[in-house]
Structures are given as C-alpha cells and as structure tokens.
C-alpha cells in the first residue's frame, strides 16, 4: 500500500522530471564536462581531462575583479530592494484597512512583473539620459549647471534598473508572510506596552523572515545570473561574471567559459544554501 502511494507520487512527478533532467541536469553536466576539456582554438573541443581552465580562472586578476563587480551589484540591489520591498509590503499589510483596496494596490505593484524586463529597462533612457527628464529638471531648477553624466550608462543606472525590476520579488513573499501575522499578537504587544520599534524588532521582522529569505533568493540569483542589465545600463563601463562568460562564448572559448560558469554556479548555490539554512522554505510555502 505505501509502496503504491510512493509510486503514484512518482508517476505524478514524472512529467516534471522529463523536463528537468534533459533541460537542467544534463545541460549542467555538459557544462561541467566541457570545463575539463581543452579548446582546439577554432571553437572545437578536445575531449581530454585538464584543469588548465580552472587554473587560468583562479590565477587571473580579472576573475577577482569580475566577481567583486558582480558582488557589488548583488549586495547593493539586495539592500535597496529589501528596504523598499519591506516598507511597501508593510504598508500594504498593516496600513491599508480596506481589503479590496489592499488587493488592488497589491496588483498595481505586481502588474509590471508580467511585462518585459528589457522594455522596463530601456524605459529609463528618456529619464536618466544626458538630455533626459531628470537632468533637464535639475538644470531648470538651477541645481546643476551641466548635465549629470553618471545617471545613465553607469553603475548608478545598473542599480536603479535592478531595483526597479526586482523589488517585486521582495514585496510578494514578504507581504505573504506579513499577511499571516495575527493582528491580535500585535495588539497584545501594544497592550503590554511595547513600542513601535519593539513590535518591529520582536514581532514583524522575525515573523517575516521566511518572506525575506525567499525574496533574497530570487534577487540574489537573478542579479548574479544576469548580464543583460549590466551590459546595457552600464554602457560597457562595467562587466559581470555572466557577461564575461557571454563574451567567451561569442569567441567560441567554450572550455574557459564553462569553467567560469561552474565556479559561478557553485558560488551561487553556496550563497542560496546559506540563505536556505535560515528557513525551511518548503514548510513555509506549503503551510
């Protein structure tokens, strides 16, 4: 009987595995294998076993700089989207009293998530550009005398574009955990003389931990795996790990690109693993 139950579960899961094995497990094994191969210099792979790709990767100072640059964008984006996402979710969960209005405002925040990220990114150009709205407004107000060039095609623009795209990944899970907080707990704390800060520190933040963890996983993995925003919004001024990987691929340097991809994926998994240690996300989602 129990064996049959296990078999039924596996039967229901088999379509998922039919996709995940050839399109996630095997491609990763292919990349892993390619990272130990040698390049023939013409885009072909020589099936040998060599660690030279990894050796090159770890001895090049470029690698360290790339990782530091990517880490910088990851930390900045994570920080700003967390603060903004937390405040927005808190507003929606605790301050909007009409439930229908709450759903409406929540949808207002989520609709852009369902539209193209690329379009949302390039839509900053008419605002941040040298002749963009922000520069024009600042010039008119006399706050600056010549256009600020650091607004577009700079690290600032990269972080703005990321936060613009990814804050939603913080809002949804954090709002979801906050909505589950029993308001009577907060009332009880108020009656017991807790201050606003106490409530935030002792009730709201600990009880939103799973949402924060889930949002952080999304934000961190998307920023670390992205090359597109950095490429377009930095105007070529900044590089990223995946961007360098893409450059390697376009000149057919598969083995070195593969080695870098493996290192990146391992680094990412370690980071995600650390976040997952703080919370049992499966229990949190299914609860």
């Amino acid at each position, binding site marked *: 009987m129990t064996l049959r139950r296990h078999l039924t579960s596996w039967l229901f*899961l088999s379509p998922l595995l039919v996709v995940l094995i050839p399109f996630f497990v095997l*491609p990763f094994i292919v990349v892993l294998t390619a990272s130990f191969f040698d390049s023939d210099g013409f885009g072909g792979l020589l099936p040998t076993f060599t660690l030279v790709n990894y050796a090159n990767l770890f001895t090049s100072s470029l690698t360290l700089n790339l990782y530091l640059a990517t880490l910088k964008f990851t930390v900045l984006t994570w920080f700003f989207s967390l603060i903004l996402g937390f405040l927005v979710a808190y507003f929606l969960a605790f301050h909007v009293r009409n439930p229908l209005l709450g759903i409406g405002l929540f949808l207002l925040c989520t609709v852009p998530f369902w539209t193209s990220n690329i379009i949302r990114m*390039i839509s*900053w150009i008419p605002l941040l550009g040298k002749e*963009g709205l922000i520069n024009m407004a600042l010039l008119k107000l006399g706050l600056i005398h010549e256009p600020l060039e650091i607004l577009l095609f700079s690290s600032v623009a990269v972080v703005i574009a990321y936060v613009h795209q990814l804050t939603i990944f913080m809002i949804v899970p954090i709002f979801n955990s906050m909505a589950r907080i029993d308001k009577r707990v907060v009332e009880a704390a108020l009656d017991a003389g807790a201050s606003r800060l106490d409530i935030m520190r002792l009730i709201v933040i600990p009880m939103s931990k799973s949402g924060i963890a889930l949002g952080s996983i999304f934000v961190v993995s998307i920023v670390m*795996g992205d090359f597109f925003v950095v490429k377009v919004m930095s105007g070529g001024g900044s590089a990223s790990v*995946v961007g360098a990987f893409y450059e390697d691929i376009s000149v057919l340097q598969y083995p070195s690109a593969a080695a870098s991809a493996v290192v990146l994926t391992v680094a990412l998994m370690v980071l995600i693993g650390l976040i997952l240690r703080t919370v049992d996300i499966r229990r949190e989602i299914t*609860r």
Partner: protein
Amino acid sequence: MTMAKEALGPAAAARRRSRSRQGALAPGRKGRPWTFYVLAAIFTLYVVALYGPMISIYILSFQDIRGGLVFPMKGLSLHWFNDLFTQVRTGDVKGSFDRSIKLAGLVTVITVVVSFLAGLAFRRRFFGDTVIFYLMIGSLVAPGLVLGIGTGLLFNWLGLETAWYTSALGAQLSWTLPFGVLVMFAVMSRFNKAWEEAARDLGATPWQTIRLVIIPILAPGLVAVALFGFTLSYDEFARTLQTSGSLNTLPLEIWSMTLNVTSPSLYALGTVTTIVSFLIIGIGLGSITLIQKRRARGGAAGH
C-alpha cells in the same frame, strides 16, 4: 526599555497605552499615526517610479518622423509603429512576434498540466521528495545563460538542431515549471482535504475526484499558473538566447534592437509588446474574478 517604562508609573503607562492604541494597527477614525503618511508617501513614490518610465516610452513612441529617444515630444503620429512592421533594418518583428506567442501558448499548456500533477504529488511526503524539491529550486536559480549554453551544447553533441519549439521550449520550461509548482504549493495549501475525502466517501473514483472536485476548486489557482507560464515565457530572454536556433523570439529581437536601433521604433516595439502583456494579464485576472463571482453566486443560489 521595560524598566524605564515601569518607572513612569501606572498613570503614564496607561496614557501611553491609550496613545499607542490610537496609533495601533486598527486605529479609530480619529487619525492615523505619522508612520502611515511616511509609508504612504514611499508607496506612492514606488508606484510612480514603477510606471513612470514605462509610460514615458509609450508616449515617446507616438512621435512623428523627427522623433528622438528623449523628451520633448516631437509631433504626433504612428510613424514608428509603421516603421517597425515595414522596415527591414529593424529585423523580423512580425515573425518573431508570431513565434513568441506560439511558444508562450505551448509553455502555458505544459506548465499548467505538469505543475498541477506535481502539486498533487507534493501534497504528501514520499521517498525522494526533498531531492526533487531542491532539483526544482536549482533549476529556478541557476544562471539562465549557462543553462542555455549547456542545452545548446547538448543538442550539438547529440546531433540535434536547436529550434524554438524544441530546445528553447525545454529551456523555458526549466524556468516556468519550478515557478508554476511553487505557485501550485501556495494554491494547494488552501485546499481543504475534507472535500476530497467527501468525494471518495460518496464513491467517486480517483479520476472523478480530480476532474469533478479538485480541478474546479483549484481553477483560479490554475489560471494564475497559466498567467505565470505565458508571461514568463513571452518575456524570457537568457535561457532562449542560445537555444532558439536560427529564428528569433520577440525578446531576442528587442535585445538586438537595443544594440543597433536608436530610433523610437524601439519604443514602439515596447508599446506593442506591453499591450500584448496587458491583454494577457487582463484575460488572466478577469477570468479569476469571473470564476470567483460565479462561485459566490452559485453558492448563494444553491442553498
């Protein structure tokens, strides 16, 4: 902190309590705490920053032939939309648009069916469930471009051609399915198992239970999964880049335009693709509301 408060004496504590009562979570009509206004301002700014840039490119896409990439608006016409669908230099927008819609349709159907089945399986613990769960999380967080290259190489080694309806379809599913299953988890957690047991007690076969009880009850959740499937596929870029073969999907077309085209036709394309997204979102959210309305009416009339 507590010590200090106690030192104020009972009267002060009571005063403080009534004051904080007013500023509590469900305050009276008298007024809201100052934090409400601060947070409302932050929320408004967020929404303005969320929509403002998008709206500005929609406006700029309606300029006439003199139009540039920044304000002020030069003239008013549909020139750049026309340009988008007729000019050769902007690439094959119409073909890629077609492919993207078809691909998204395929991804949607597969995502709904597979996520639903997986959601059913994950309601119970079974041998190896944790492994599969983490496999899914891995597929969700792995860098898309890396998986795309891996898939491309795999097809290459197996002697298969990459194409949007084979390799790109699979690559997109490796991203939409974990998403769909996670949404399914949230949907299933609100499902009351008593209904299912009642169906079984009344003599329903497992298949009847799924078809007549579980699917109708979960219908709004399944529409939500479909909405995720469609929009995630329609806008997918990183995993498709190396797997779509010789023919582009729309996001790939937009990407090559961002690198070559410096005219408002880029914005016109943005406007067109956003209209499609909004139509899909409208259909998705509209049908969820409709199902729930009909259910509420049926519930009221049926008793």
